[in-house]
């Protein structure tokens, strides 16, 4: 029998004006057959589908690149890993090994950082949700508490007075940096004087050590200049403190929010082209601080809480085609075992998705749906992809940030997370959930334990 050729699904498509043609799009579909030296097929055979894969090599490389970007431009730089971006212990510890502190926004995250062995004094406690007991714990551990609102400030004063301990605090400042939307729900406003009022209250109380100033101007920011504005406004506050109280703060925390190379929905150009590099952000922030009118004896440490930009492209989500179908109007739809439950960021990104097996230049437009029996479960409304068959594998790129924390236990269970170390070794760092994972939290009242059908 003569050797049979590789099969490709038959397709016919209509030639229409303003439709991207296959030649134009060809190069967008290089298949991703392996990740960090491991064939996608083998990884799925061994660990199941879907599967998150994280590259330790890439994580460390991104971190070192970012650290270098800031350190070459500013004398004292400290990174603090944003736990909410990805708080898998193994991931956090890679950043801690690299020298990163922890930046947490809840009692749960705080406990996780302590459990990982981060010294209390190297934990930054942000966010609007800090309970009385959270604050007591943070004060006892000498952590850095970033005050979000006046109620928190008064609560801290009460605890300090009663416990005779001095909390180390900063305030979070929100401001107009020329970008939309302005994040004015967190912290104290700069322009209307709230921030300056809060600083005065802290200084007058004499009960707390005011050690820093913090801001976090937004998320997925594409404008380095906005950070320059933010840095100079914080520097101005610092100089006002120096003038009025002869008090020097120890650090300026510029937050995070740097865009990754993902493509936001509705963006005409892809994120790989429009997102500034970490060097652009570093240049804007460092030069704004160096050129500001703040003249302390000791320059403040610059704290960076970047999450997304350090991790997004260091993780992939591997999945499998469950079925192909036609919608009522003849459009193609492809159903994957990856849905918004695992790929939460599909709500705001047009993720790059590539096939994991060799392909030809023929493509078709398809909607990509997830496995959930819910109408909202759409991975891409319309994407031009090579012809996929049931059982084929796909790779979703840039999934490191927010997916492994915002994923949903909804309808189905969450999958394995695999770390590939610098030598190519495979480590399961979070086991796939089982029925037991979920039911072990449930309690059945005795009168509901039995039924007859």
């Amino acid at each position, binding site marked *: 029998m003569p050797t049979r050729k590789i099969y490709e699904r038959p*397709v016919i*498509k209509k030639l229409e004006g303003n439709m991207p043609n296959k030649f134009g799009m060809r190069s967008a579909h290089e298949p991703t057959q392996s990740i960090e030296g491991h064939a996608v097929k083998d990884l799925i055979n061994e660990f199941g589908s879907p599967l998150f894969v994280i590259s330790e090599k890439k994580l460390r490389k991104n971190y070192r690149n970012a650290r270098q970007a800031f350190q070459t431009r500013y004398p004292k730089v400290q990174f603090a890993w944003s736990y909410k971006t990805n708080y898998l212990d193994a991931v956090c510890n890679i950043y801690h090994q690299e020298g990163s502190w922890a930046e947490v926004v809840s009692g749960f995250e705080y406990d996780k950082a302590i459990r990982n062995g981060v010294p209390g004094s190297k934990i930054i406690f942000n966010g609007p949700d800090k309970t009385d007991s959270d604050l007591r714990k943070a004060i006892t551990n000498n952590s850095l508490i970033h005050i979000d609102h006046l109620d928190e400030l008064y609560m801290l004063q009460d605890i300090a007075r009663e416990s005779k301990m001095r909390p180390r605090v900063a305030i979070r400042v929100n401001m107009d940096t020329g970008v939309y939307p302005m994040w004015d729900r967190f912290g104290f406003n700069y322009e209307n004087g709230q921030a300056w009022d809060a600083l005065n209250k802290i200084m007058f109380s004499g009960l707390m050590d005011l050690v820093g100033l913090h801001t976090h101007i937004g998320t997925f920011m594409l404008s380095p200049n906005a950070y320059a504005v933010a840095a100079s406004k914080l520097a101005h506050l610092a100089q006002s403190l120096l003038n009025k109280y002869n008090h020097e703060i120890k650090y300026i925390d510029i937050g995070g929010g740097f865009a990754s190379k993902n493509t936001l929905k509705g963006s005409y150009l892809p994120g790989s082209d429009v997102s500034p590099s970490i060097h652009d952000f570093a240049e804007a922030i460092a030069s704004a601080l160096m050129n500001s009118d703040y003249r302390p004896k000791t320059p403040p440490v610059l704290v960076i809480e970047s999450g997304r930009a350090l991790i997004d492209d260091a993780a992939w989500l591997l999945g499998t085609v469950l079925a192909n179908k036609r919608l009522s109007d003849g459009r193609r739809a492809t159903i994957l075992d990856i849905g918004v439950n695992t790929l939460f960021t599909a709500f705001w990104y047009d993720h790059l998705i590539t096939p994991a097996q060799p392909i030809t230049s023929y493509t078709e437009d398809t909607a990509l749906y997830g496995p959930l029996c819910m109408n909202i479960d759409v991975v891409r409304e319309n994407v031009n992809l090579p012809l996929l068959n049931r059982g084929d594998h796909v790779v979703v790129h840039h999934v490191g940030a927010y997916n492994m924390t915002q994923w949903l236990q909804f309808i189905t269970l969450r999958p394995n997370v695999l770390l590939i170390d610098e030598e190519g070794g495979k480590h399961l760092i979070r086991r796939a959930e089982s029925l037991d994972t979920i039911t072990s939290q449930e309690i059945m009242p005795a009168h509901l334990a039995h039924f007859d059908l």
Partner: protein
Amino acid sequence: MKIKSNIAISDNGFVFNPVTGESFTANPTGLEIMNQMRRGASAPQIVETLCNMFQVEPTQAERDLQDFIEMMRQYHLLTYDEE
């Protein structure tokens, strides 16, 4: 069903309907199916040919053939009167 006799199919998969003025492109598998249909092959015969030519299982080939024919129907490339 058959492909309408006036439909022009070229060797590189370009398909032109002279009545409606619409044109289409098909990939090599699609082109093979259309050529088979032109020669009067039945659906089971086309599936068999595909399985001989390509590395594909009959169930998959059958499913894909059905989908392909459905698309041709939607594009008004088929006729039924001689059935």
